[in-house]
């Protein structure tokens, strides 16, 4: 009895897994949108640089060419 119940539960759980837990490749339309990207896209990088300039009242320093002294 207990064993059968366990098997039935497992079957139900496995049935749920595909629909509720895994995002299938064909359901990734929203993930494919630009706004879902973790890395800044080229268009947005320019905007972000502009916002940074206004907020920090300073320009530059965002590239990797700086010496790290913070003097620029």
């Amino acid at each position: 009895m207990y064993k059968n119940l366990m098997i039935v539960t497992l079957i139900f759980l496995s049935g749920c897994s595909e629909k509720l837990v895994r995002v299938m490749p064909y359901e990734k339309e929203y993930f494919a949108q630009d706004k879902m990207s973790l890395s800044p896209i080229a268009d947005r990088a320019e905007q972000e640089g502009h916002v940074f300039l206004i907020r920090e009242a300073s320009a530059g320093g965002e590239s990797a060419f700086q010496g790290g002294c913070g003097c620029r």
Partner: protein
Amino acid sequence: MKVILILLFIYANIMAAGKEGDKASSFNLPNLYHLDKEVSFDRYNGKVVLLNLWASWCGGCQEEMPLFVDLQKEFQGSDFFILLSSIDKESQNAIDFLHDIDPNNLLDALYDSEKILPKAYRCIGMPSSYLIDKNGNIDTVYVGSIDEEKMVALKAKIKSLLRK
């Protein structure tokens, strides 16, 4: 032991994809360009078909589409057909994309808003393509986009299936 076997069966059932040698699932889906007109898979009985599951938002699908247009041009007049099935939420997105790539509508296009085909074929990656022989059996499954290199092998397969 019995329980392990049952668990293995369940796992295999979940992970099973549309495999080579399986009978291709039949369907009735609307034509992408005329949504009120249904296209039946039975129409392609006795033909070699490359069924491509795609979406306009999928980068790999966008890359391979021009190659499919060239492929269909090459086999124009033969019993080989490329059948696209778009799973876009908005059919217009798919139409707009194809308008630039395939202005003469060489490729047969379906619209599968309910994602019936990816579920039936247990699609495990986008894009997925299924080469179906004249008897309606899946000959080869291609997961991911088809590049120039894969295209050479695909053409050879199509020619061989057309000869059978």
